[in-house]
């Protein structure tokens, strides 16, 4: 068994309005960043799983996304999995 680190990102589907993103975009523009066209805000989740192979780890993460982390009626997700040693910092655990 090795330990894998997964990073899951969950977004509102493109056609769904993102009020948070819109508010941030407006704020950025009023701060003078007027080249900012659109802002979308999603969630990024870092977690560790135990699995023999990368494929197995991916299956686990996919299942988590489908069951819990993402609501497919309005969200989509993407994720990456890598062996823990290689994992970069991000929001890594303490």
């Amino acid at each position, binding site marked *: 068994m090795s330990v894998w680190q997964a990073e899951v990102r969950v977004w509102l589907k493109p*056609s*769904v*309005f993102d009020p948070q993103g819109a508010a941030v975009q407006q704020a950025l523009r009023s701060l003078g960043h007027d080249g900012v066209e659109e802002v979308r805000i999603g969630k990024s989740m870092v977690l560790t799983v135990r699995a023999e192979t990368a494929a197995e780890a991916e299956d686990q993460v996919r299942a988590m996304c489908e069951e819990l982390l993402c*609501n497919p009626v*309005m969200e989509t997700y993407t994720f990456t999995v890598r062996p823990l040693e290689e994992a970069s910092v991000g929001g890594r655990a303490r």
Partner: protein
Amino acid sequence: MAEAQVTVWEPSAEKIRDERIYREMGLTDEEYERAVQLLGRLPNYVETGLFSVLWSEHCSYKSSRLHLRRFPTEGPQVLQGPGENAGIVDIGDGLGVAFKMESHNHPSAVEPYQGAATGVGGILRDIFTMGARPVAFLDSLRFGDLADPRTRWLFAGVVSGIGGYGNCVGIPTVGGEVVFDPAYQHNPLVNAMCVGIVRKDRIVRGTASGVGNPVFVVGAKTGRDGIHGATFASAEDPNAKERSAVQVGDPFLGKLLMEATLELIQTGAVVGVQDMGAAGLTSSSAEMASRAGGGMELWLDRVPVRETGMTPYEIMLSESQERMLVVMERDKAELAFEILHRWGLDAAEIGRVTDDGMLRLWFHGEKVAEVPVRVLVDEAPLYDRPAAAPATLPGADAPAPTPLTDAQQAAQALRRVLDHPSVASKRWVWRQYDTTVRVSTVVGPGSDAAVLRLPETRRLLALTTDGNGRYVYLNPRRGGQIAVAEAARNIACSGGRPLAITDCLNFGNPEKPEVMHQFIEAVEGLADACRALGTPVVSGNVSFYNETGGQDIYPTPIVGMVGVIDELEQVVTSALPEDGLTLIHLGEPDFALDGSLYWQLGVGRPAGDAPRLDLEAERRLQMLLLALAKRRLLRAAHDISEGGLAVAIAEMCIAGGVGARLRWPEPVADAAGWLFSEAQSRALVAVADADVPQVLDAARAHGVPALVLGASGGEELVLADPAGTWLALPVAELREVYESAIPVRMDAPVVRERGSV
């Protein structure tokens, strides 16, 4: 961002007919034929879309309209009855109360947080578009069994969604109800009510009058949200899978819209305002024109859009949230822009009022639709769907309720009923709601009705929602009556005079004769009680098709009621305030267990008939309660409802932190009925010793049976008869059971995490 030229795939009128594409849009063959006939030609794609939306159940009330005519809708207090964004009643001092309830069941079943949040946002807009300042929300909720993880996910999400929207817009959520029953496992009910205050001379209606007056769309940009599912099923639409039937609410924008609209209305230059709720621009424009008996012309390319390449069809059917349609007086447009821009809102002039009775749509100079408003709105189909009563009432064959013959069983039964999430404390719910913003909440959640101060008058508002699907299932007519009676009793127990109701009628599939029977009977029952109690229906909403896999929910009409209390000193709550008060049972004693939760818990399904109700006795009881409150004779009052007498007294003890001792005057052989009967038209009141004779006299004068049962005091709740003690439980223990029932169940993890990042 560069965008490829969008090819609009829109079938021709002939293709729509030949390939019956209208079916995907929700029209039946007969309805399509009717549209063709009324129009005198084949409707094009956009026009077919207009018909499909306005002739949907949701907009046209085609299955219910016929029956809703049974409701009494008039009375001296009614300033605005059904047919507008909200109903309004007069509370004196030049003020009206605008209120309405609406369901958001289906969206909440797939995305509980956003479904509930957008439900709250929608009902909010219905209130402030009348010119009323929203002052309170209430919510009536139904879920399955909390043992089911998905139900916990739904429950948690709905509650946080209601709070998420209501808290952010700064309007307190002051009351509501939650019931858990497996009948709602796949079809949770989420009904939200909003209440607002308006000066009588400042009421605005959703009318588009005055030829040439400009029409504005105000608020959020229009995107491809929620355009009804069926149209996307088409394989020709490349973006289908990216789309969502669920919308995300923007309470911040909702708050700005509310403030800006109220300010705009103050200018006196607003002719009419309408929320763009379900079916967006289509229903708002057609309904506003219809109310004025005129027409409207819209230039759809001027509607601000969020996405490129939107077609006229999509613009008309979009359900993007936080938008409104506003008709201003000509020459006052500048004023509107100034106010809206100060609030940071977008507004665009997109059309004008006409007098030719047509809804005419233009897109880049091309006429894309032209349909008589009358045909879309008044000529919508009207169905008298077949109804059939079941051969016997569904609870008639239930096994008899379990008798309670010893003290231990009685204590155990009370614990079990108090631990049922439908009865137990809903603090877990309402502590997530801001209940005190606007500094006007005198009585928040936890008593019979919520009570609010109004800055402009000494009078106070009393608000409640009630409805018991189990009763309606067992006996639709009486169940309907009870919903109104119980709401009014909650108001009366709080010291208020009931004024009028709004309703949300949640039912199964109306194409089933049994469901239609439930509907018709329940409506009759609501109407009976409204007439008997003098509380007309001023607004409401119907939600059909609450079924999954052929299984319908209990027929669940919910009543939202508004009452008025003359002054602060007349407010009564259910909490026992101190020791030494006399406890009096008002109303006809009754031990029948029909429809009770106790019986259902014993046999696993609703059992017996609906509880007894005598509307005349109910009216007398309420008159009595009101008279007693006015004379300041009530130190506490609580209606006897779900869970019966035992739950009522336990709740009074728990709320006040005071014990009580009740002794039934005659020996009781089987305590089940005594403790848990849900027979209606009863209340428990707490009265100072010195006032007891006056209270008994008043009861006699009102023709209401009154029975002195005992007194408050001590640390225990004791229930006894002449033969001995039936039950003696510390209030602390009762509180523990009552308060922990929902938190303990919710501590189990919910499935699917939700909420903002």
